[in-house]
């Protein structure tokens, strides 16, 4: 076997595993969300299908597949079909650059626990993350429905506004690590012996909050505000096409949690991770679970902001603070350290 084949097979295996993990993760995220929120609301949540309701996601999947797939008469057919795909593909590939454990040398062969170690990983995250919004806008436009349209427009405005603060709050770790590769950022946190969330508390909070806004999660779930827009941009979607939007949303939750963990919470770092690298996967997952739980918790607790309040928060607060944070970090790095 020549080297190229090895690389291709290696990447294919890792990509397959990643996709599988994410899809299963999505299924159980829906379950976890329902269970956690049920707990918050003094209910029991799903408990009928399988032990503790653990087969509920499977039943939901079957249900989604068997539902009638409807399309509004006035819809733009091509775009209507394309939109869920455009939304879900980036969600799946975004995790490709995130390392989940340190390198592991087995029988002289180095296993890298990352699908592709890009030297511009941070840029990749931003670029791919923004593609998903096209799906949302197209879905809103192609549905030929006013609710969808408004959901789509809100979403565009929201994502564009928060993209700036979101991107700027990635700059802190980049400056500290002096690299855009996510592996280097994790290494930098290891070398400094401290997670960047403690060096960059403002950046960390901003990143998490704007991340929620990027995800359209509560309390920023404007585009799909149930109370006003029934379901926002996917009002007209049903069956598996709806399922794909649903999937994209949950996988993006996992992806954004993964980004926060990598940039600010030391990625896979933890005790004995260098002695036995696969342990990193456990540390990484634990941190991701913690963040996912926090997101669900927020959804179960807080009401929604209004659209104009959201915008003014994004432009008048998040963006200036993020810029000042970058500026301060740069000044400290250059003149103080």
């Amino acid at each position, binding site marked *: 076997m020549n080297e190229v084949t090895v690389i291709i097979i290696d990447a294919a295996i890792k990509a397959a595993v990643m996709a599988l993990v994410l899809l299963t993760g999505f299924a159980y995220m829906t379950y976890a969300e329902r269970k956690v929120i049920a707990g*918050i609301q003094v209910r029991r949540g799903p408990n009928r299908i399988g032990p503790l309701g653990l087969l509920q996601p499977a039943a939901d999947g079957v249900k989604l597949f068997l539902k009638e797939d409807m399309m509004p008469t006035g819809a733009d057919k091509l775009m209507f079909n394309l939109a869920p795909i455009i939304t879900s593909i980036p969600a799946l590939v975004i995790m490709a650059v995130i390392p989940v454990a340190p390198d592991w040398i087995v029988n002289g062969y180095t296993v890298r626990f990352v699908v592709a170690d890009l030297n511009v990983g941070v840029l990749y995250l931003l670029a791919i993350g923004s593609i998903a919004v096209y799906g949302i806008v197209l879905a809103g436009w192609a549905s030929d429905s006013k609710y969808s349209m408004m959901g789509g427009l809100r979403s565009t405005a929201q994502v564009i506004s928060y993209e700036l603060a979101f991107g700027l709050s990635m700059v802190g770790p980049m400056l500290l690590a002096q690299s855009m590769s996510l592996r280097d950022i994790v290494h930098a946190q290891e070398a400094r012996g401290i997670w960047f969330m403690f060096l960059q508390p403002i950046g960390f909070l901003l990143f998490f909050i704007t991340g929620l806004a990027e995800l359209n999660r509560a309390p920023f779930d404007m585009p799909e505000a149930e*109370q006003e827009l029934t379901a926002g941009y996917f009002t007209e979607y049903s069956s598996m096409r709806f399922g794909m939007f649903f999937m994209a949303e949950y996988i993006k939750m996992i992806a954004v949690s993964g980004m926060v963990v990598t940039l600010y919470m030391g990625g896979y770092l933890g005790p004995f991770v260098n002695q036995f690298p696969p342990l990193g996967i456990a540390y990484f997952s634990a941190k991701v679970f913690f963040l996912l739980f926090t997101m669900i918790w927020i959804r179960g607790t807080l*009401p*929604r902001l209004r659209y104009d309040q959201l915008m003014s928060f994004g432009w008048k607060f998040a963006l200036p603070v993020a810029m000042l944070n970058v500026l301060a970090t740069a000044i400290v790095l250059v003149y103080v350290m």
Partner: protein
Amino acid sequence: MVAPSKPITQDLTERFPGAVSKDTRPGYEGYIVSANKLTEVATAIRDEYGYEYLASVTGVDYIADGKLEVVYHASKMSGGASLNFKVQAPRDGEPEIPSLVGVWQGADFQEREVYDLYGLRFSGHPDLRRILMWEEFEGWPMRKDWKEVYYEQDAKPFKTRWPEGSVYRIEEKNRFNKNVRYPKGFDPRSFKSDGDEKLYALMRGEHLPEHQRINTDEIIVNMGPQHPSTHGVFRVVVKLDGESVVDLKPVMGYLHRNHEKIGERNTWLMNMPYTDRLDYLSGMGNNHGYALAVEKLIGSKVPERAEYLRVLMVELNRIANHLWAIGFLINDLGAFQTPMLYLAKQRELILDIFEATAGSRMMCNYMRFGGVVRDLPSRIRDEDTLDFITDLVAERLPAALDEIETLLTFNEIIRTRSIGVGVLPAKQAINGSAAGPLLRASGVPYDLRRADPYSIYDRLDFKVCTRPNGDVYDRYLVRIDEMRESIKILKQVLRDMPASGAIMDGESKYTHKVPNGESYGRVENPKGELGYYVVSNGAPNPYRYHVRAPSFINLTMLGDLCKGHKVADIVVILGSIDIVLGEVDR
């Protein structure tokens, strides 16, 4: 409203000689105003006599006299009995009387309702369309000569199902085939409704002159009747400029079942369970209002213990209703059900009391003319009844309210989303006949339990809660305050209630001999003034049975409240008004 320089004691008949006369029919009271002087008299009643609040407008069809009558009830904000004045019009031809929307904004929907159900036109009404029935409906359903197909004797198809042994379905021969009567030359297959088109044209401003119509990117959106947060099959047509509301018109009637027509077919007592279905979240209060109206006519005296039981149930009901209202309001603010479920926990316990006492959790059917139907049971949920209620009132409910206050009242998001949203100024609230928490949140201390005390409220110590700002947040706070006051009332009731005694005035009976006359019974329901206007002609069933539904009339101002706010606020403002569609559409 201009305050009169000196209190007018002059009688209306002297003030307007010739135009106003006393209503002298036996059992009737108030004045009869001639139609051409109506606006002038109404303005005087409002400004000079101080009856600033138009509580109720309704029609009555006196078919034997060939007259349609419109009955108005106006109240003083300082309290006291309401003033009742009437206008009569011939029922043939196209009867028309002047509209009072210019005097009282609150007449808007109510006049539309009278027009819709009686075919009486109101000249000068800004938007006289049908409101409960659909635009193409043929006929005026509340008129006495309009027979409801399949239900009223002449229109019943079942008289002779087997004439001379031959079998045919009389429905096929019925001129009301398929329950619909078509006008001449009408073909239902080629018909396309223009009811909505009329409404949209109005929203687009097509009635305005050309130069005032500007074509911008405004869109007209239908919210409802199938929408997750319109609290039922309610529909608002909104004109939007981006996210901002430019104009809004409510559309209702999807749950219309002609409750009043049914009520006029039923015997007096048979209406009692029907009232439960109006505002199905506060059935006890509905029972109470109807019982009061009919008791006024019968003249029965309610025994002491029954009065206490009534107030006990009604106040528990108020708490249950407000818990639900607040839960839904927070839900409309986008909280994912959590606060609602916390509040539902307490509401369940109240419903347990209803279930143990009346037999049903929501459709209680608990009150009768002259008392209540059952005494308290000895045990609720394996606990002594009084212990259970005392524990709930003294411990659990105050704790729950404290919990709401800590978790919600000072929540930053709730405050930013509700403070300054949907402001209703006090003046407009009175003029627009707002009632209940909607009125009191605008700083008007008007509560029928104090203003015109009924039952035993005159001996109970409680405060009329008001808040000054009239926005969504204040409506939320007023509800919390009112629950605290209700707890105070409940404690007094539990303390003073006679341990035993009769719960009915005399024997309980199925049919009541109700003397001729009219009566307006009103209670302060959780949602506002709930009034029942009943007319008896001595028959076993009411001649007229009208419900002054607070949810319905409170919606009059929805358009004004929402203008200039964002789409998301519509839902919140609607939630803060707290409507139940069973009552809006009747």
